[in-house]
């Protein structure tokens, strides 16, 4: 039996350590560890609640917009305000830019190098001039001996299956995608001022009144991204997938899924959002359950915290306490959130499955077509695992970008009707509570705020990666990534490429994960979903 440690675990956001035990060429056990602690919830206490949406964006530089929106939704709830229609739509647009940016970045720059052998691309025999150019450039780059970010990787590993021509195409698109993810961010800056760290989504709506000129600028820029998604991103996924279909059964995890829902509907009903809220359990699939905040608990016995009981945290004090890395005891700064005591996968796959089971027409069509194309019509459960996560992100990226175009037209329509308002004023109540249940590109994100004396008394955050990368719970049940790793083949323990594939498929974001839940964390139970 061999133990493999991957630390630092790269091509993710933040600081992750993964340790696995391999027996007979397969992973037998696994531990995921968040190795940085910052403590945002402690920092927020006593502050002006209106600062929360700015400060909590700094939880994550990859999905700051989602934190801003989730925070502002929790404050909308506490202040009892709703954004005017254009404020609602502009928040959706700014969020949409981030989803598009994040999914492109994930596929091409964080995940692709697990499947694309950059060195093999040198053996390709391209006919097209632009590909020849990329190959010549790559050759010169490799010959320079300065491999930069491509140095010392697992090139030549037997698990790389793509032929040289497709590897070359993917390298060319890796470079093109660097431009595209930047363009998606520039698009958010058009309404958000800058990206990362959007400046325009306070509670009550947005700060910026778009001009018709802004809207035209937006639509033309977006069109370029839509074309690229349709003509490059989706075809690339389709081109690569057939070579990795053996990964369809790998990396399944607990196969319970949670989505709080994202992209607000005019009704403000989370079940009517473009990607609706809902919960799926492996045990009664394809039944869809309502997602309820009161069903969430957090377990702490395997994280570096003074122990608190999971179901009744009011009796304990939850304090950070580093006691050294020990996989038999405590081994991470992450906590283990559970829904009805079950570990839940969150992310694009969870959202697309919930949307599919809700009968959301676009999601249904995209997924049905995909299932038919891979010969599994009517069987969405074949998507549970690594390949399903890759596909779900690509399909969601297209679905969001296409809807962003419609939202742009909606904003213009509202302006025409004289409904250009984007902001609803409010008074800060002396005492109030609010919940924001939303989604970041990586999955279910929730903020809870408790205001007393016009100041933050308590603030709590449960992030997507906390769900995915959390450790074992108090019952010894593994977290989703830990569980997904079980059974993964490892051809060469010195080059654990397959482990990278499984963990990357969750798009982990560690900065998001680690935070502190205060002793009053049982307050989660008292909040109502807005």
């Amino acid at each position, binding site marked *: 039996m061999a133990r493999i440690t991957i630390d630092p675990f790269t091509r993710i956001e933040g600081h992750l350590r993964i340790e696995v035990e391999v027996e007979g060429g397969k992973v037998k056990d696994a531990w995921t560890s968040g190795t940085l602690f910052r403590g945002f919830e402690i920092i927020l206490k006593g502050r002006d609640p209106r600062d929360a949406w700015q400060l909590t964006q700094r939880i994550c530089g*990859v999905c700051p917009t989602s934190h801003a929106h989730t925070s502002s939704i929790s404050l909308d709830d506490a202040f009892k305000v709703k954004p005017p229609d254009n404020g609602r739509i502009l928040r959706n647009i700014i969020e949409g830019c981030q989803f598009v940016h994040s999914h492109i970045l994930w596929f091409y720059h964080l995940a692709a190098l697990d499947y694309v052998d950059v060195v093999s691309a040198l053996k390709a025999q391209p006919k097209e001039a632009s590909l020849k150019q990329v190959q010549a450039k790559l050759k010169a780059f490799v010959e320079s001996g300065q491999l930069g970010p491509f140095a010392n990787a697992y090139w030549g590993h037997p698990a790389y299956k793509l032929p040289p021509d497709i590897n070359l195409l993917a390298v060319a698109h890796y470079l093109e995608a660097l431009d595209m993810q930047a363009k998606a961010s520039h698009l958010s800056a058009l309404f958000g001022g800058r990206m990362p*760290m959007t400046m325009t989504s306070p509670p009550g709506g947005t700060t910026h009144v778009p001009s018709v000129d802004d809207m035209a600028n937006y639509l033309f820029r977006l069109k370029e991204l839509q074309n690229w998604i349709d003509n490059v991103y989706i075809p690339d996924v389709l081109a690569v997938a057939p070579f990795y279909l053996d990964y369809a059964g790998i990396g399944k995890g607990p196969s319970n899924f949670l989505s709080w829902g994202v992209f607000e509907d005019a009704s403000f009903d989370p079940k009517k959002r473009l990607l609706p809220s809902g919960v799926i359990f492996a045990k009664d699939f394809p039944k869809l359950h309502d997602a309820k905040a009161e069903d969430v608990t957090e377990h702490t016995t395997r994280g570096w915290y003074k122990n608190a009981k999971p179901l009744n945290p009011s009796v304990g004090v939850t304090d950070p306490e580093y006691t050294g890395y020990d996989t038999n005891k405590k081994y991470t700064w992450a906590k283990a959130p559970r829904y009805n005591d079950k570990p839940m996968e969150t992310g694009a796959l969870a959202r697309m499955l919930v949307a599919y089971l809700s009968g959301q027409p676009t999601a249904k069509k995209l997924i049905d077509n995909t299932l038919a194309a891979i010969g599994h019509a009517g069987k969405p459960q074949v998507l549970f695992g690594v390949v399903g996560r890759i596909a779900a992100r690509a399909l969601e990226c297209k679905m969001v970008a296409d809807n962003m175009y419609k939202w742009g037209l909606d904003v213009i329509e509202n302006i025409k009707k004289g409904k250009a308002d*984007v902001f609803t004023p409010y008074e800060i109540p002396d005492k109030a509570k609010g919940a924001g249940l939303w989604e970041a590109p990586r999955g279910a994100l929730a903020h809870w705020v408790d205001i007393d004396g016009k100041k933050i008394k308590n603030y709590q955050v449960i992030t997507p990666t906390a769900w995915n990368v959390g450790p074992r719970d108090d019952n010894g049940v593994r977290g989703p990534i830990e569980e997904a790793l079980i059974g993964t083949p490892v051809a060469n323990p010195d080059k654990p490429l397959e482990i990278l594939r499984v963990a990357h498929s969750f798009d982990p974001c560690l900065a998001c994960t680690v935070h502190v839940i205060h002793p009053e964390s049982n307050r989660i139970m008292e909040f109502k979903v807005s």
Partner: protein
Amino acid sequence: MADKEDVSRQFLEAFEFRGIKRRDFLKFCGATAALLGLSELHIPQIAAAIEKASGRQPVVWLNFASDSGCTESLIKATYPNAAEIVLDVLSVDYNETIMAAAGKQTEEIREKSRKAGGYILIVEGGLPTKKGHGMIAGKEMIDVLKEMSGPAVAVIAVGSCATFGGVPSAKPNPSQIVGVTEALKRSGVNKPVINLDLCPVNVEYLVAVVVNYLMLGKLPDLDSFGRPLMFYGQTIHENCERRAHFDAGRFVEKFGSNEEALGYCLYKMGCKGPMTYSACPKVMYNDRISWCVKAGGPCIGCAEQGWPDKFAGFNDRLPDVKMAGMQATADKIGAVAAAATAVGIAAHAIGSAASGRTKEEKEGGKK
């Protein structure tokens, strides 16, 4: 102009910027020269310096207690863009967010770089000083910084976490996070640090500092906070596109209002531009599409030491008292303008007393 064109052509040929159009290239040259505070006459020198350089400059980018927003900023660069920075201009040998290698192989690269030395060390994120609160490969982050800073030719701290600790170091600073300068001091390493404060770093500042080093072989002049004067020499207020409205007493009183659309001043919405030294209004963000104030978002002061606590209450109007305090610590270069600003702010505060909002402002001022 003929000289400039000629040298630019050589420059272009020497570097074969990927697919970059000539027009775009000239835009880049001009922008770089402007950022560096150089006249166009310097462009031939710049090109000559580049031609002499052999190989790409190695860069080691370490990420500590951050949210990777500055890495995100880096890959939003446009002229040069991320692909050009990574493939043509620099050799980004270590950056955990983008590198292909993982685990053991990553550590091997870091060790190889450390032994070879000669790299520019770019640091993102602050350093937790509480044991076990920030670890990479089983080592304390502050020890990784110490190891890697010695052989570096220059240390650049990017973003407010790396400069002075940033948001994670806000009260009560749960992991006792410090910035790079302080961490090096505590580790007994004597190395000057260039601080590119802002949350996140503006990638144009970073590119300009690196290009400055590559082309001229020197680091830029710094203010008392270690920030390059070329970017931190003037307040946001001084260069703000909404400034004329401030001077005319035209203010936004509500987010998303008609006044916002007309470009009125955001001072009454809590804008910290008068106290914040940064070239944001000139350089903007994201290919210069927009920046905070342009998009109707008041400046929150993220370029300043002590942020965010110093500016907590982002929506509270700056009282004139703070303006007076600022003059004592501001660098000379902005002092004259700042003094004029303080007078202006005070006058406006008096003027606004009639608007019925004075009480609220005073409460804000107590912070």
